[in-house]
């Protein structure tokens, strides 16, 4: 069965005929060609596929694309404006919150969701918000520092998005 799916991905409107059984992560990676969103497990266990749907973090690997009708999807591919890194991206880069980079898209999107609803998170807030995202490289220490860096940058008004 197929559905006509209308939504926006990173601000761009899409109308696509998709099969009802298509997962959002496959829609993003294969239909729109945005491969920033990663698949790290067999369903909901690692968080690498985290995207924002109407500002909230979701597992794209456990979301049927056809349930995202009229939604606003955001992925890591669309965060930077004019090829400039956002405060979060700079935080993950400069504080070494990304080593191999495979969990990073999901980490950044989960962090983005956090900062949108809580621009001044405590360390505990950051831990709670990233608790569904597994990283195998960093031990999370520098991921926390990366998010703190971004919060400070945003508070000082630089490159506010």
């Amino acid at each position, binding site marked *: 069965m197929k559905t006509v799916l209308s939504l926006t991905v990173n601000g761009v409107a899409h109308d696509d005929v998709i099969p009802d059984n298509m997962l959002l992560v496959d829609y993003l*990676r*294969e239909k729109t*060609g*945005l*491969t*920033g*969103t*990663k*698949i*790290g*497990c*067999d369903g909901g*266990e*690692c968080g*690498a596929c985290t995207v924002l749907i109407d500002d909230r973090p979701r597992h794209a690997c456990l979301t049927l694309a056809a349930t995202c009708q009229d939604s606003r999807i955001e*992925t*890591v*591919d669309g*965060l*930077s404006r004019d090829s400039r*890194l956002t405060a*979060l*991206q*700079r935080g*993950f*880069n*400069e*504080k*070494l919150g*990304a*080593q*191999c*980079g*495979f*969990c*990073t*898209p999901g980490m*950044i999107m989960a962090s983005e969701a956090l900062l949108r609803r809580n621009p001044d998170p405590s360390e505990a807030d*950051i*831990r*709670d918000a*990233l*608790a*569904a*995202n*597994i*990283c*195998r*490289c*960093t*031990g*999370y*220490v*520098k*991921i*926390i520092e990366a998010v703190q860096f971004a919060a400070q940058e945003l508070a000082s008004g630089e490159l506010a998005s």
Partner: protein
Amino acid sequence: MNEMTPVQSVGVAKPLVDGPEKTTGKAMFAADFQAAETLVGRILRSPVAHANITAMDTSKAEALPGVHAVVTEADCSDTYGVLPIAMNEWALARGRVRYRGEPVAAVAAVDVATAQRALDLIEVTYEELPAYFSAEEARAEGAVLLHDDKPGNIERDAEFDLGDVDKDMAEADLVREIEVKCSEVCQVQMEPHATFAEYDGARERLTIRPSTQVPFYVHKMLARTMGMAEGHIRVIKPHIGGGFGSRTETLQSDLIAGLLARKARATVKVVLSREETFITHRGRPESHITMKVGMKSDGTITAVDFTVQQRGGAYSGYGIVTILYAGSMIYGLYNISSARFQGLRVLTNTPPCGAFRGHGTVKTRFAFEGLIDDMARELGLDPFAVRRANLLAAPTMTENDLLVNSYGLDQCLDWVEKASDWQARKGKLPANKGMGMACSHYISGASKPKHWTGEPHATIHLRVDWDASITLLTGAAEIGQGSSTVMAQCVAETLGVDMSRINVVSSDSALTPKDNGSYSSRVTYMVGNASIDAAQNLKARLIEAAARKLEIATDDVECLGEVYRGGQQDQGLTFDEVVMEALAGEGTITVKGTFDTIPESWGGRKYRGAAIGGTMAFSYAAQVVEVTVDPYTAEITVDKVWVAHDCGKALNPLAVEGQVQGSVWMGMGQAMSEETGFHEGLPLAANMLDYRVPTIIESPPIEVGIIEAADPHGPFGAKEAGEGSLSGFLPALTNAVADAMGVRACELPLTPDRLLELLEKKARDGGANSDRGAA
């Protein structure tokens, strides 16, 4: 205003040169590649643990519309394996399967659904054999052999007996023994294995992008398995989502992708599920260790006598090296003279183990550091004091002929003792809290490569063209550890130029010089040195050009990195001007740098396999772990870790911190929550729910102290930073638990159920052990 100086790049915290790609989603991992009409490759896996394959019929699968290729062992020219002396695996099982999940056939089809249907149509007839899931079963009298040339199902028995263990043990004031059992663990790098393979049928050429740490080994094994000329294969390493040793050898999926692409004469992508990635395994073996240590009353160790048995899985892999490391690395950390080791690597019907971060050393270190902690307590010595009583003095050779050329363990101990406020706080914490410590070390690359060809250990090319940018060409595999960044720093520092001049091209066999790959922490040391050598060669060329242009002698040229001049009064030439002069009459400059290890570092010949452990330099680490135990549930919370790591010189302090934190934390997963498990050979935890990689919630703050006991041959004095502090966490944790609860944990991971059993046993045994600390 001539106060210019060369730009400093080494010792400076630098973000990764490929960081922006990773934070924007632009980094291309193997599964991200897609070309028009890319076929989907899927693998049929054995449902049985041990069986002869008596028949296989792929005709129905081949006839299915949409199927472009079906491959089996018949398409393989030869075996493969990472050790030249132990290549006993087939990309697709030939004649026999030896573990559940072993690949037996594969298909390439237009889409996933067709590929899956095709797999279902392949008929395989198995004649089952007895299967062994534990080392004991496999070793039992009369057990069927997994491999005809491995009697007793022993992959390798290793042993040494150095000094006079019996005499020195007899002279000890205290002799104690410990028996430890550690579960098998898996790397679980975030990226499931994937390979993108393109076959050019017009030219009979293969281009392949595997998720590997060792593009060169994959290249060799592809040629061997496919029966192709090595020069007809191009291996390009994409971005790699971590490795930790799981990709330190060629994996079946890499070979299968190549086989499918050739047979389909098309582009094929093989992406494994997380379950398949677990089954591919190559993790750290389940180990059973017994260890006896003799100690003088002042803490001096007189002798060590130990046995290690590893359940290695169905094929050799790295197994011989793993069991040898488990023995040889008893040396190199402390001043130990007499030691006796007996090791057994056993073949079982489980997925093959491999070279997990801290290769071979981790479980031996766990046993040793736990045992000497208990002995210290019994002798009334502080845990730090007993370590300090056994320090080495570099330079020295160990009893098994390992070169120790630099040694910062004493400084590591000082740092963590002070940072954790050990002397003031140890023993004075509230109930159910405790502190423990331990030390560890690791090699900076094996001094003797597995494939001995006479070539240098590492080769780097630098290319400079008209735009005055420097292209660094390296075969070393950037896998997220930051190797490309470190190489760029070494080159920039040597030339004194800004790092932005340097572009790194990593691991494309058509462009970059051969490199053995990213494992055993060899890259910073070996490839870093080659980078420096290349940069020095380039610098010499540039100085010659500057001298020519300035009309002075080369010795009189002062190189300030971005400016070359004749002296302070000289306005000098910019780097760009020097490059233009250097290119005149010559064209594009390409220089080479190489590195070779020194023979003294090659390890000894005192026993069979004594070269294993030989390295140019050891890193050293000490750590203190503080825990709280929930007395109701026996859940352990790690409140804080202080770790000091001697990396010789922190070329990039940011990356060193990241590596050390990652190592300690990975040790934590292994110590507290991670384990595989099997139900009659079926993996019970082949997913990321049941295999418990720690989440951010229970992951502690990890404070890192960088110790720089410079190595005389290291690049700017540097040694490894990415493995040495892993193994120390395991005993530091159990030592902390012993401090908090008075029980000695000998089985890992120390999950709440295991700790609760220990606590209940202690309660049942009554108050005999009620004082703090384990007896």
